[in-house]
């Protein structure tokens, strides 16, 4: 008599492919997953509780550390929320600087995703190529604000540092170089048979499921729903620039891959226009009272980070510290669909699907 047993396997929390300290408890029947439960909270640092005793400028470095791969967008969501509540106007040059760094950050974040995704799939070299390009962006940020990963760059009312002389020219030169590199990388990977077999038709879901589970970013757009907050709920200066929003049709890993790749190109397009329209002079800080006290009330502000919709819900009692600060993190919401997607898949596909969702654990756990 053959007796089969279900195997309970722990993927993580230390694992080369879970992009952080994520633990997935997986019930296996041979190589097929019958049940998968993500367990999070290994990186929970209590940002929201800490924020209740800090004033808004002090919270900005904490936002850097949530989604550490895309720190500029986190900065922006917080300062934008406070500015909206207080009705502060940001000078044009500062807003341009913010937009340029956010789009550069989007390219850098998608490069990290691309390199690590292909590393998970077994291709060793694209990881190094991606980080080589990202190093150029990081150098630009280093010149601008002195940090490579956690920038603490934006302030309520503007930005902390003005662009040093020649910085905008460096950004201008970076754009065509990066476009050329992207073409090469596309030729390297996107036609590769093995790669296509690994990602086409994997992790499919339809638009209804995506909307029901509150997915955002490329995870939502891969099903055909054209929802990008830069276009649908414009913020900052995005309505001044022309760019497309790539939308997929099948809702599988391949579509998510192609969308993110194309988003890099569109970000470069925005950067080109932004650098041309960049005001040659201007203030970097608007009129802000010395003590930042938003009026009593609440607000919910959301922007498009590389991972999806990041939101900031502030409840203020008129003091310098928020009464309650809640971040709506895209990776947290996007991860909810994982148990549903993984049933019936093999372990190899688990890695491919998890990589395609593009999560950052700092953001999941906050």
């Amino acid at each position, binding site marked *: 008599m053959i007796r089969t047993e279900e*195997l309970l*396997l722990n993927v993580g929390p230390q*694992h*080369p*492919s879970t992009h952080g300290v994520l633990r997935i408890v997986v019930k296996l029947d041979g*190589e097929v997953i019958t049940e998968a439960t993500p367990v999070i909270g290994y990186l929970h640092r209590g940002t929201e509780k800490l924020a209740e005793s800090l004033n808004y400028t002090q919270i900005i470095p904490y936002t850097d550390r949530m989604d550490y791969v895309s720190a500029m967008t986190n900065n922006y969501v917080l300062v934008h929320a406070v500015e909206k509540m207080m009705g502060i106007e940001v000078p044009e040059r500062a807003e341009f600087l913010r937009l340029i760094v956010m789009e550069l950050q989007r390219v850098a974040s998608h490069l990290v995703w691309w390199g690590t995704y*292909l*590393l*998970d*799939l*077994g*291709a*060793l*070299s694209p990881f*190094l*190529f991606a980080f*080589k390009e990202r190093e150029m962006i990081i150098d630009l940020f280093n010149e601008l604000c002195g940090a490579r990963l956690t920038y603490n760059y934006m302030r309520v009312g503007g930005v902390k540092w003005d662009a040093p002389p020649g910085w905008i020219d460096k950004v201008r030169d970076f754009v065509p170089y990066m476009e050329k590199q992207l073409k090469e990388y596309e030729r390297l*990977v996107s036609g*590769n048979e*093995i*790669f296509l*077999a*690994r990602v086409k038709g994997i992790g499919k879901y339809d638009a209804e499921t995506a909307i029901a589970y509150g997915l955002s970013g490329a995870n939502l757009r891969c099903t055909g729903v054209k929802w990008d907050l830069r276009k649908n709920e414009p913020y900052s200066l995005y309505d001044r620039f022309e760019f497309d929003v790539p939308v997929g049709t099948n809702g599988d890993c391949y579509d998510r891959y192609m969308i993110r790749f194309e988003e890099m190109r569109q970000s470069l397009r925005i950067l080109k226009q932004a650098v041309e329209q960049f005001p040659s002079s201007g203030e970097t800080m608007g009129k802000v009272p010395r003590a930042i006290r938003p009026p009593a009330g609440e607000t919910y502000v959301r922007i498009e980070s590389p991972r999806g919709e990041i939101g900031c819900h502030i409840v203020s009692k008129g003091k310098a510290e928020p009464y309650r600060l809640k971040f709506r993190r895209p990776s947290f919401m996007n991860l909810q669909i994982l148990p549903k997607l993984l049933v019936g898949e*093999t*372990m*190899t*596909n688990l*890695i491919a699907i998890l990589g395609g969702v593009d999560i950052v654990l700092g953001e999941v756990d906050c």
Partner: protein
Amino acid sequence: MSDWVEQPLTWGNVLIYAVLAVVFLLLILGYVTYAILFERKVLGWMQFRHGPNRLGPWGLLQTVADVLKLLIKEDTIPRKADRALFILAPALCYAPSFAVLAIIPYTRELYFADLNVAIVYYAALSAISTIAIVLGGWASNNKYSLLGGMRSAAQMISYEVPLILSIVGTVMMTGSMSLRQIGEAQGDWFWEWNFLPQIIGFGVFIVAAVSELNRSPFDLPEAESELVAGYHTEYSGFRFAFFMLAEYVYMFAIAGLASVLFLGGWHPPAPFLDFVPGIIWMILKMAFVIFFLFWLRATMPRVRVDHLMGFAWKVLVPLAILNVFVTAVCLELFIKG
């Protein structure tokens, strides 16, 4: 060399054979050392970086340091592991790989054994290493290792079949299974080498060989990002070194096989180049094959396990059988008849 081998067995001869074997073993170890270094260097160059370059001039002492590190590590055996099998597995993996090297001819005169069933000998011994891998995965008492061992067994058994079938074409063309005779039978111009008439067989052989070696893109058993390290997760220190040694020695064996079977062995690409000794040509061809394996590792992502199996049985085996059939027809029509 051939006359020494044909001499009757005396104590003196045994001593000479033993010394030659030890010398060869040392050569192989030297090869493994620098193959590991060159793999890392070549991978690095393809990824826009230098490989290791700190230890020794140009990094030449890197592997020495690595091996030294592995040898002086603590020998940990997991408590619930099956001790005897755990200790047996690496040695069982390495021994056949060295034994297989006996049948490869390096030049017309330089060879260790000229078996007339060399191909079968190779297939049989390389299968023993498969058993060893499964043993290693099982004895580790670790779910990841077990999964890796199972995957590896499935993979290696599946790819033995197209590997051997692809060689049948060359055997038919030569009329013998002896590697020395197959090498001998290839001509002095490079278009007379077996890879052109047997192009399908060559293609199948290369793919099946990469899979037999458990190298990227077929390196599922050691799929680092999925199973941590597959069947050798629990092995550390010199036991791990044994597994790695076995892999590189098999690379040597496959390179030798490919060179002899398809790339003309010790023959120069053109007759006027025969002032260069045959051993140099042999070394160059083997080096090229090994470089190709490194190149594949740097470039390709990994295939999925079900694709792997499907590919072996549904694509490679039919192709290899087709190759045999076409060879038979051509031989009958054009050469004999």
